[in-house]
């Protein structure tokens, strides 16, 4: 999608430039929001898409356009950046709504840490033995339920890298768990079959 907007004028408060920005980007933002909300079994339930779109624009102009002014066209395309902002805002909205209502019914899985696996508690694991990438790969594949191809796509690496990183991470964890006599509750909780 091509967006032809003068962001500098937008950030200076030019009403015409801002109107052009809104017209050109609102559909893209709405699309990103709908996809976040549709990941669950109840698409869009509990959160109005238009409200979320409005929240994204508010976030962009807040504090004298602080967020919009932070966009660097040399590092990413505007459309990609806007979809990231829209997803972040939507996830935040869903989480806040969840906290206010106390109900999980309206919250799509994307906004919930998937931690319903029996006998698996991240906090119980000796994650200090892992590298940053190993810890992240385990979090994405176990806690957030990403498949290997999706995790590889999201991190911009090939699938084999994800598999080998996860394998080494599990080896380290297993070694750390079985060598730690003070942590019997973590023994045998995680293994290759869990992936």
């Amino acid at each position, binding site marked *: *999608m091509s967006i032809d907007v003068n962001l500098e004028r937008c950030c*200076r*408060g*030019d*009403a015409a430039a*801002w*109107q052009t920005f*809104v*017209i050109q980007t*609102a*559909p*893209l933002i*709405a*699309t*990103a929001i709908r996809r*976040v909300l549709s*990941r669950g079994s109840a698409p869009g339930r509990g959160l109005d*898409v*238009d409200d979320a*779109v*409005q929240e994204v*624009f*508010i*976030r962009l*102009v807040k504090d004298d356009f*602080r*967020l919009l002014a*932070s*966009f660097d066209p040399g*590092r*990413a*395309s505007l*459309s*990609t*950046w806007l*979809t*990231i*902002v829209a*997803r*972040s805002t939507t*996830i*935040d909205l869903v*989480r*806040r709504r969840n906290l206010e209502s106390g109900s999980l019914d309206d919250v799509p899985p*994307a*906004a919930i*840490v998937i931690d319903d696996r029996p006998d698996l508690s991240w906090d119980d694991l000796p994650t200090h033995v892992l590298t*940053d*990438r190993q*810890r*992240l790969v385990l*979090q*994405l594949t176990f806690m*957030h339920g*990403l498949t290997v191809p*999706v995790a590889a*796509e*999201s*991190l*911009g690496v090939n699938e084999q890298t994800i598999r080998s990183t996860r394998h080494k991470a599990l080896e380290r964890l297993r070694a750390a768990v079985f060598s730690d006599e003070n942590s019997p509750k973590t023994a045998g909780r995680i293994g290759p079959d869990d992936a």
Partner: protein
Amino acid sequence: MSHNGHQPDSPETTWSETDLLMHLAALADGRLDDDARAALERELGNNQHARLVLASAADDAGVAIDEAPVSLQTMQAATALVPAPMRTRRAPDIWTWRIVRAGVAVAACIAVGVSGYRIGTGSVPVTTPSSDDLVQEMTFGVFGDDDDALLDSDFAVLAQTMLEVSP
């Protein structure tokens, strides 16, 4: 660091919200160098919200971005978000218009003045010598015989008054 309500897994997270979003976008576009990627992976390991955003975006990888319809009301509300003080930047246009209007008003006044002057000077030919008859007619010819008696009585009253007030 604060992520605007985002809940980091660890107090070790030190990235600003703007940095995080920019890095995530750069990661999605494949524009991160090795150092930046390593730093982002470290941040992701400590930031649950960032991982959720990443996981959400990953699901749509390779899917073409279409355009979802947005209600007119939402578009209008978003357009109106531009802060009011910013709109005062259009003040130069207003002042230009005011200056033009003032100039037109001054020009109109001058035109009326000049026209009036010309009409006035044209109606009284002070530079044209008048004949004695004409002067006589303009100064005294306006009075008829009936008016002479009235003038005489006025002069009589005036003379009497002057006599009374003179020492």
